[in-house]
Each structure stands twice: as C-alpha cells, then as structure tokens.
C-alpha cells in the first residue's frame, strides 16, 4: 500500500525539490509507492489541508529549508505534529543552510540593507501587511523540533534522497556514512605539507592531483561523503556543503583544527590567507556553529 508522504519547503532555494524531480524516469518507480498528502511545489493542497490532517497521519514528512520567517516556524511545528517520521532534508534543514551566514548580522541590519538601502530601492520600508515577520536568527531545524532522520546535502543528490526514501519504504535503517569526500575522490593525494594557499581563480589546477596538495582549500577531508566527490571530480574545491561527518558538531572548528596538521603556517599567516573565515569554513552550516550562537546572543542582548 502506498505510504502517506508530505514534502514541505521552509525558506530555501527549492533545490532539494528539484533534486527529487531529477530522478526523472526513476520517479516512475517511486511515485506509485507514495500517496502525496502535501507538496505545494507540485500538488494543489493548501496549508489548511495540512493543518486539518489528524496528528501522526503523515508517515514520512520531509522538511526542506530553514526558519527565516515565523511562518516557517509554524509550518515546521505543524509538520512535526502531523508526521510519524520527520526527515531533515538537505543542509538548510540539517544545519541552517547558506542563509545561516546572515547570522553575522542582526535581523534589523539585514532588513535595512534589503528593504531600505539597496541601490535601486525608491521607497524604503519594511513590509508588514499580511507578512509573517522574520526570526531573529537562523537555526538548524533539528534544534527547534526533534527529527527521526537527517539527509544532508546542498542539495542531497537524487540518489541520496532515493536511498533514504527506499530505506523508509522498506522499513530498513538509514545510517549516514562515517566517511569523508576524500574517500570517494579519485585524485591522487600525497598528503603534502601546505606552505601557501591559492584562491580558486588563481593558476591552473592539475586535474590528476589532490586539490589540497596543490594548495587549494578543498574541504573534502572534513566533509561527509554522500555526494560522490562531485566538485573535486570537476577540478573544483569542495566547499563542504554536505556538512561534517557524523559525530562532528562544529564543522568549521573541525576544519580549522584538521588544517593545523597539514599546514606549515602560523595562525597569523593562516588568517591572512582566509580573511573571511566564516564564509570559507562554514559554508552551509554557520547557523549550527558555536560562533554563530555567541554572535546571535550578543545581537539579541544589544537590541
């Protein structure tokens, strides 16, 4: 019998949705197994329909995106109540996502720039009528309500989502792999000591050699392997968008400490190479870092 599923988008880019659609002909096998009870991107059910479902009547509830608005928080709580198994789908849901970088500023500063001081704005104001209002800062959804499952990735690959969904449909356990991107990367790694870093646009990358060995900041060594090393395979450094391997709580802190063992530089030199430590080391997971929590607390106290 088909399982009752819901897919919900909080503030996000909808790439997780697109990733599911990217199963393409593979969808033909999956669709008959699912009874879709809510999926605004595809199906015309309204919020009221979701709110009117009995509690725990959704068997698998997928949540994409993070809570940037109060409407997102409401939707997340409704999904929790209605779902038996709630799945944090994608890096926004698992870690806060790229919009977590906004936590470097207060919500007032963010609104000011977008709605009042942008170069083309002709009548600055903060929209209010029928608007939900924003959250003070972005958090991982898993810090707001409990989840049964996490499938990280920005976005998860179609295969990642299919694997999770198949495990759920067959009642099997789904476990995140305890491996890193380097384990799946075909490039040759010599574990060189790095004395100088290059920025991505600099020089010419040797396609056969490890990017980190060549002095490009490739974060594969500290990032969970679910993606199949997609970026290094096309000569592009990993930015860590799938987050850390299981057990690591603070991705950036892990990266910085691990770099310490391969880099022959003092702290000052390292800082010079990476003037934007937050953007470089916490791409999609700044919101779950200790640093972000401290900044958010400070912003709150000041306001």
């Amino acid at each position, binding site marked *: 019998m088909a399982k009752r599923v819901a897919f919900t988008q909080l503030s996000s880019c909808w*790439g997780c949705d697109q990733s599911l659609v*990217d199963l393409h002909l593979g*969808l033909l096998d999956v669709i008959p197994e699912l009874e879709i009870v809510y999926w605004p991107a*595809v*199906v015309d059910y309204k919020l009221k329909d979701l709110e009117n479902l009995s509690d725990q009547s959704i068997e698998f509830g997928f949540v994409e995106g993070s809570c940037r608005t109060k409407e997102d928080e409401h939707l997340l709580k409704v999904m929790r109540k209605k779902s038996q198994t709630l799945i944090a789908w994608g890096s926004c849901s698992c870690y806060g996502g790229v919009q977590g*970088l906004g936590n470097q*500023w207060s919500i007032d500063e963010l609104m000011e720039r977008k709605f009042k001081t942008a170069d083309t704005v002709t009548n600055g104001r903060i929209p209010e009528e029928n608007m939900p209002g924003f959250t003070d800062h972005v958090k991982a959804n898993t810090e707001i309500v409990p989840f049964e499952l996490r499938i990280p990735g920005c976005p998860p690959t179609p295969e990642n989502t299919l694997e999770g969904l198949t495990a759920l449909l067959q009642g099997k356990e789904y476990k995140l792999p305890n491996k890193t991107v380097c384990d799946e990367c075909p490039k040759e790694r010599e574990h060189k000591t790095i004395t100088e870093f290059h920025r991505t646009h600099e020089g010419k990358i040797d396609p056969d050699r490890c990017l980190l060995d060549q002095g490009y900041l490739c974060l594969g060594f500290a990032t969970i392997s679910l993606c199949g090393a997609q970026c290094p395979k096309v000569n*592009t450094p990993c930015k860590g968008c799938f987050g850390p391997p299981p057990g690591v709580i603070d991705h950036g802190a892990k990266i910085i400490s691990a770099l310490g063992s391969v880099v022959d530089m003092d702290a000052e030199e390292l800082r010079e190479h990476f003037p934007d430590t937050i953007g470089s080391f916490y*791409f999609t997971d700044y919101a779950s870092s200790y640093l972000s929590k401290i900044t958010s607390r400070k912003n709150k106290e000041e306001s």
Partner: protein
Amino acid sequence: MTDERTIRIEPVTRLEGHGELTIKLGKGGKVKDVQFNISSTRFFEKFLEGRLAEEVPRIAERICGICPVPHLLASVKAVEAAWDVNPPSAAEKVRRLFLNAKQLSSHGLHFFALAAPDFLAGPFADPSQRNVVNIIKSLPDVGKLALQVMEYGQDLVSAIGGKSIHPVTATPGGMLNPFSEEHRDNFLERMEDLKEWTTDTVELAKKVVDDYWDVIENFAVVPTYYLGMHYRGNYEIYDGRLRVMNPEGEIVENFPAKRYRKYYGEHVPDHSYATHIYYKPAGYPEGVWRANSLARINVADKMPTPLAQEALEELREKLGRPTHATFAYHWARVIEMIQAVEEMEKLLTDPEIVSTDVKLSDVEPKKGNGVGVVEAPRGTLLHHYWTDEKGIVTKTNLVVATNNNIGGIEKSLMKAAKQVFENKEHENLNLPDPMIK
C-alpha cells in the same frame, strides 16, 4: 449584512518560492485590492558582504535551486566585470551551452509540472488531480516526454558544472573544467531523440493553445512595459544589451547592463518581501514591467535560429507584437525551448566546445564594481558587486529575475479577479474537454 470579504489562498501552489494571495472584495463583489504576498526572503544582499569575490558565485547561486546556472553565471560575470577580466572564447561557448541546457530543463519543468496540469486536467478539476504526478499516472506518454526533456537538460548541466543543482565550474576567468569530448559525443548522440521530444512538446503545446484560445486571448490580458536582452535585435540570453519596450510596443530604451540604475526602480510594497521592479522614468506603478519568456520575445526583433523564428512568426501572426496576453507566456516558453535546442546543437557541433583553453591563469583581483546580467528562465537577472583591492566583496545589489514580474503578476491577478468576481466571465469561457478526466 454585508458581502464584503477577504479571500486568502495560502500557499499559492505550483510556484517556486513562497507566495500567498489576498483578494479583498467590497460591496457587490467589487474587487478592492489584490495582493501577491511573497512571504520569504533570505537576505543574500547583505550576507554576501565580506566574502572572497571568487567564492560568491557558489553562494549566490543558492538563491534558486531551479535556476542556479543563470545565478552562477550572472555572479561570475559581475566579478569579471569588476576585475576587468575577459574569459577565453571557448569558456564563453561552454557557458552558453550550460545556460541553454538549464533553459531547456527549467522550461520543461515549468511547462509540464507547473503549468500543464491546469490545461490537461482543466482549471476546474479537483485540486487533488491537478498535478504532474497525476499526468504521469493518467497520461503516461506525456509524463515520460516531460521527464526525458528535463533529464537531457539537467544531465548536460551536470556534465558541464559537476552537479545539476548548484553547479560549480564557472570561476572568474573561465571554467575550472573543460567540456570533454566524451560528453560532447554522448549529448550529440542523444540530440536526435531530444529533437523528437521537442517536436512532440510543441505539438502538445499547440493543442493546448488551440483548445484554450478563448482564455489566452481574453483572460488576464494586461498591457505593461517589457524588459529583455538582445544582441543587435536578435533574441539573446548570455550577453547583450537590454531593451525596454513600452505598452504600445515601442522600444524606449536600449542600454548596456552597467547603466541599469538609471532605468531600474525597485518599489517595496507593504505586503510583499519581494520587491516590484519597474521602469524608473515612468514611475510606479505606471512603469511596471514584465520580464521572462513573453517579454523576451516581445523585445526581440527575431530569433537567431530558423525553427524558433518560424514559431515566433506564428505567434506574432496570431497575437501581434507586442502581445500582452499573460497566458501567452506558455507559448513563448515553448518557442524558447525550440531556440535552446537549436542553439545547443549548434554549440555541440562547434569544435571549440571541447577546447581545453577555458581558463585564464593570471586573473588578479582589483578594487572596482561590476554588473553581471544574463537572462534566467524567469527573466533578466542582474548581480552587481563592489570589491576592494584584495577582491573582497564590500557591497552588492541583486535584482533577481522573478522580481521583474511581481508587479505585472499583481496586475494580471487584479484583471483576472475583476473578470471572475465582478463579471463572472470564467463561467462563459469556451473551454475544451480536459484530456485528463
């Protein structure tokens, strides 16, 4: 007893993003106000500040998971403009192939998954039936067609960019990875199938146009300004000047993107987090313009490839230039799909497409500012960055594709609401028997 009421549609479904609709009705069903409430935004404008500019394209493309390629390219072009960098010609060709592949898959997704359910199941079908999942179940041939068209485009995006969603290879100065001969051969081999699917899609679209002619010609038709790219009058999506057309169909502006601030106004409504972009010299709301497929085919004199040009002539014969028929967006989108396929074939057969000379190795950051513009599936997309001498972003301005359309969408909704609530015109529309019953 009063018949004043407010209708809320929450959320608007089959939409990429978060939107709600509010319709306020006064006495006698008079439409007092229509609001398209876009209820989320994530503040990229601010949090791109302080980043290394060459990393910004990979952050900024996360604005949209459906159209990351245009964001990646507009962003890279903005950095290149700020640093005075001109990538090798082979890199430009690969980027054009990249952008057209995305145009194809996005238009496929839009036509089949977002729009077609209204036409194939009919606008009055039960909400549970009006979706692409039902199309796949009830019209398996159409479903398969949809999936194959999208798959070709997404696979090609992935072959060039490493991933189909949030691809990574474009960097200031070119592409980090060349397009391989192996990939080129594979996509050329599949080209015959793609052309056949495109023909089938066009046939289906023509049937929809014929069946819903009454709706296209008479429903939600609103005159607005139009914004779109062109190259010497030809339709163009990667690099060209911008044209503004007025509601009478005259080209009133023709400018390089870097001068956009003279022409672009951004109105902040009280009821939407997405701003309304408009033609500044005409003021708001008079200057509300629309972008996207219909705008592009309105502002272009002609399509650069033969079959697309033929399709454009057919549309113009029936609807004229400009056409303000909102429902003709779907038709324009199909013309653009033909264009994308023809251009992809041209690029795939160009020997330079597999050149390994796709990246400069001496790109240097500098203090400056640059504007990058491409046509995204939903319209003209503009990124503007300021960088310091180390190449760190100090300020940004982003005018994303969809925002060019929000004011126009609201105008269309107002017109449609009046037609429905004041005149009950929807009851007299000549509608076909739905293909899905």
